[in-house]
């Protein structure tokens, strides 16, 4: 005899599913003799429950709900008191298989059914095989996308790598060094980028966006918008003549807006493809029909065509890997620290560029100062090197007013930045302000200890505000372990901004028919046992678009996603998504399996 306890969730999801409907369904399942609601049971009194158990002579209990596990221990106690085996408690956790919204009632029912039959959901919910198109689409050209593409292409199968911006490389290309080994990001990444550019099985489509996805797993038809580069990548030699005379300027995305770029530009010298393009949004010719200097100057005839139009190409693929990555938290929201108000309050990503040899100051750390025209720019003059720098952790992370979650990487990259600053400015003083240091990975703790030894002064305590007096910034903070109030005068403040889902993540999810969580990170099939698959077959997620991740985890996950693709290629078939299964199908399968188990 089985009893079902339908628990109310501890952290309520936005639109909870209608539990009554599920309960009615569950009550009808074979062997179910009792259905308990939170109102029936006082979760403080196991004796009462154990009596219930004995009265209805219950042998198994199924706990159904979003956080079923929260109540398991209570029931196992009750079971023991009733003289039963605590092992006979089965969790039907809706979250576990992504049934937390009201439109997922059917799956919730299926989960309960499997639990009642005592069959693991994975085993019962086995979709049928579909024919497979071996080609693969990878969305996003960051490290995750690059890794996944290379893994798949290594098996001599076609990969389409679609990247929104003009070059692949993503955030990693912007970094100077990577923690904890401190080898330069470029040295690790550029070879991979080069390989992508040269690989015969990888069709690289930069400056393009996925517009629509149709079809079924194993055979998707994807429309891709190829934005006009206006410079023919095949004939462009990358000489850069077009950029010389190109007047209009705009903050460079690659340099985190610390420098200006022209309309005819190349994202950065090592970009892949290493070809120039023209940004229509600021090109004088395209705005008011005059100029066109680049066309005259370009040594290759017919290479530049300012009137080129965007085109839409259509490709057919069997698998799709989403690796759209993340965006950094917008620090202007965080009023207290005066980002955007005070010129020398920088975000960590800006500092990365500042430290980088190819950055605005050629790797020199210098404050922003006002030039003749009165706008704030970084200088090479050594008089402006900061004497002291403050690095503030958890900007926009672990904060109910912004993002509740922890961004996972900030602690470590802050320590890294501290080290790099110390290396470049040995005599200046570096302060870190943190809540908890989260140095969790291989060699991270060692790195943390090393930074401490290097004389970076690491303070436990979250600063409340940054104020500017003259050209001096003052960070006010409590040094919790030192039991004092610090009012630190610094020349430069670095905000360790957290990571956020891409703004268009919801759009992509909707386009591909996958789900996002409350923050907008893509939801995986099962966080514990299947962290890369989604509920739609043939669509895997990799890297930071699933949640904050550091590079090693991202690379590993990207390869994992690739393995799913390779598996289907090896079988030359692909499993349909769980979504495709109806409740009945799952239930009947579960029934069969449970019979097999009994025999």
């Amino acid at each position: 005899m089985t009893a079902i306890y339908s628990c109310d969730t501890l952290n309520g999801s936005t639109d909870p599913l209608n539990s009554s409907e599920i309960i009615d369904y569950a009550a009808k399942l074979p062997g179910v003799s009792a259905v308990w609601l939170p109102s029936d049971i006082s979760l403080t009194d196991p004796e009462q429950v154990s009596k219930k158990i004995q009265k209805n002579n219950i042998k198994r209990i199924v706990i159904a709900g979003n956080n079923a596990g929260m109540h398991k221990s209570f029931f196992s106690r009750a079971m023991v008191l009733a003289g039963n085996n605590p092992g006979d408690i089965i969790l039907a956790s809706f979250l576990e298989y992504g049934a937390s919204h009201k439109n997922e009632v059917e799956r919730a029912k299926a989960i309960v059914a499997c639990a009642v039959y005592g069959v693991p959901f994975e085993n019962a919910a086995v979709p049928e095989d579909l024919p497979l198109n071996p080609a693969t689409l990878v969305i996003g050209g960051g490290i995750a996308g690059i890794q996944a593409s290379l893994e798949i292409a290594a098996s001599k199968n076609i990969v389409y790598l679609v990247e929104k911006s003009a070059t692949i490389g993503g955030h990693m290309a912007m970094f100077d060094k990577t923690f904890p080994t401190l080898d330069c990001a470029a040295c690790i990444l550029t070879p991979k980028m080069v390989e992508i550019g040269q690989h015969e099985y990888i069709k690289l489509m930069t400056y393009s966006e996925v517009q629509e996805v149709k079809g079924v797993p194993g055979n998707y038809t994807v429309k891709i918008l190829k934005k006009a580069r206006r410079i023919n990548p095949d004939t462009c030699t990358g000489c850069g003549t077009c950029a010389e005379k190109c007047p209009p300027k705009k903050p460079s995305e690659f340099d985190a807006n610390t420098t200006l770029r022209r309309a005819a530009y190349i994202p950065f010298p090592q970009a892949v493809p290493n070809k120039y393009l023209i940004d229509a949004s600021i090109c004088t010719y395209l705005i008011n029909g005059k100029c066109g200097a680049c066309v005259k100057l370009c040594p290759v005839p017919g290479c530049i065509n300012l009137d080129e139009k965007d085109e839409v190409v259509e490709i057919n693929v069997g698998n799709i890997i989403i690796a759209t990555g993340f965006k950094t938290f917008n620090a202007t929201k965080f009023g207290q620290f005066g980002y955007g108000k005070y010129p020398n309050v920088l975000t960590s990503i800006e500092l990365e560029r500042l430290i980088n040899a190819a950055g605005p100051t050629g790797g020199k750390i210098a404050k922003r100062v006002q030039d003749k025209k009165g706008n704030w720019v970084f200088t090479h003059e050594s008089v402006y090197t900061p004497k002291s720098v403050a690095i503030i952790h958890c900007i926009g992370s672990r904060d109910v007013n912004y993002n509740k979650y922890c961004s996972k990487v900030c602690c470590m990259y802050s320590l890294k930045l501290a080290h790099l600053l110390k290396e470049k400015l040995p005599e200046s003083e570096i302060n870190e302000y943190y809540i908890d240091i989260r140095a969790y990975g291989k060699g991270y703790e060692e790195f943390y200890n090393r930074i401490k030894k290097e004389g970076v002064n690491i303070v436990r305590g979250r600063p409340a505000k940054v104020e500017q007096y003259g050209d001096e910034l003052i960070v006010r903070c409590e040094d919790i372990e030192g039991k004092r109030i610090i009012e630190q005068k610094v020349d430069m403040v670095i905000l360790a901004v957290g990571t956020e889902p891409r703004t268009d993540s919801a759009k992509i999810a909707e386009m591909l028919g996958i789900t996002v969580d409350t923050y907008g990170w893509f939801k995986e099939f099962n966080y514990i046992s299947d962290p890369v698959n989604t509920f739609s077959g043939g669509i895997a997620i990799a890297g930071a678009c699933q949640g904050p991740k550091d590079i090693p985890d991202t690379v590993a996950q990207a390869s994992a996603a690739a393995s799913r693709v390779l598996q289907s290629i090896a079988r030359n078939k692909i499993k349909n998504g769980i979504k495709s299964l109806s409740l009945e199908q799952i239930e009947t399968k579960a029934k069969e399996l449970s019979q097999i188990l009994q025999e």
Partner: protein
Amino acid sequence: MSQRVNLNLKNELFLYGAKDWNQCFQCGNCTATCHTTENGFFFPRKTVRQVLMGLKKSLQINIDPWLCTYCGDCSKTCPRDANPAEMMMSIRRYLISVYDWTGISKLLYKSKKLEVASIFLLATIVMILYLLFTTFPSGAAARWIGPDGGALINKMAPWRRIHLGDWIMAAGLITLIVTNVFYMWYKIIYEDKSLKLGFIDYLRPISLLPKIFHPDKKYAKCDEKKLFLYWSLHLFLALSYALMFTIIVFFLGWFQTDNVYPIYHPQRFLGYISTIGLFVGIIYFYTNRTIKNMENSKYSHFTDWTFLILLFSTTLTGILLHFFRILGWPQLTYITYLLHLMVLVPMLTIEVPFSKWSHMIHRPFSLYFAYLKKLAIINHKIILNNCT
């Protein structure tokens, strides 16, 4: 000697109106935002810590909650919604009950019923006394209608008797207050052996006196700008109350009169001013607490409400009494007079020594003690890392 931690202290504090601050993960944001914080002095975080760890001893001799200006900046920026500001207020209530040796305030704070009951009890007592010592409303009342048909209060309730009652009550209240303050001093200053204060040190803070009456300048630095209005009104209210208090306690004979003075006569316009002061203040605070537009009005303990209501009804009955008398409606006058006493007395006897109102005493004295502590530091160069 290591203190034993205790999980139940914070649960006890919920009875004093605390919100859920278990969420606190000790980032130190509150301390850093707080403008009253100076080195060695006042860490909201530290107080929160004492509560979370249940360090009763340290908490009971903690002066910080009294120094808190309740601007609410900390609660606004708290990354975990742990409401440090509100907690300070709850601890104030807790401390009031700690200082109150009679233990009455503990009971009143912890149970709404008891509070209400005691109010009504006192009210009835007043009524009984009233019936005993005045002959109202026996038919004789008719005799005290003046030739012009107006009321003759002093005939019905001669001001000397009332005055006597005043003084008896005042005496009681003052003893309570004084003893509480003494107990406070004993806990905060005397028991803290690290403080070495000579007698002369106690006299130095005279310069501090004005501070006791107007809220200290640190508010200016708070981010919450509405506070200016808030505190000026608070001051206005306090002053008008003080005015009325002095008149009644010391000049009742002159104030409670049967002849009607012209409007410009101090007996009248002083009365009006304080009444307006009280009304404006009460209404402002009432609306604040209802629309919750500021951090410091977000959360209200029931004692906050009872106080407002009592004060309001006292003022109301008072002013009505006045108008009825002037309009010459004797019966109404006499009844309102009774009602007036029936709210006035409970308000004073409950609020002043045992409840919210005692902050009127504790706040200035805590400032005084805090100053003494600072002196002690300066004098004897002792590092007070636990100035609690």
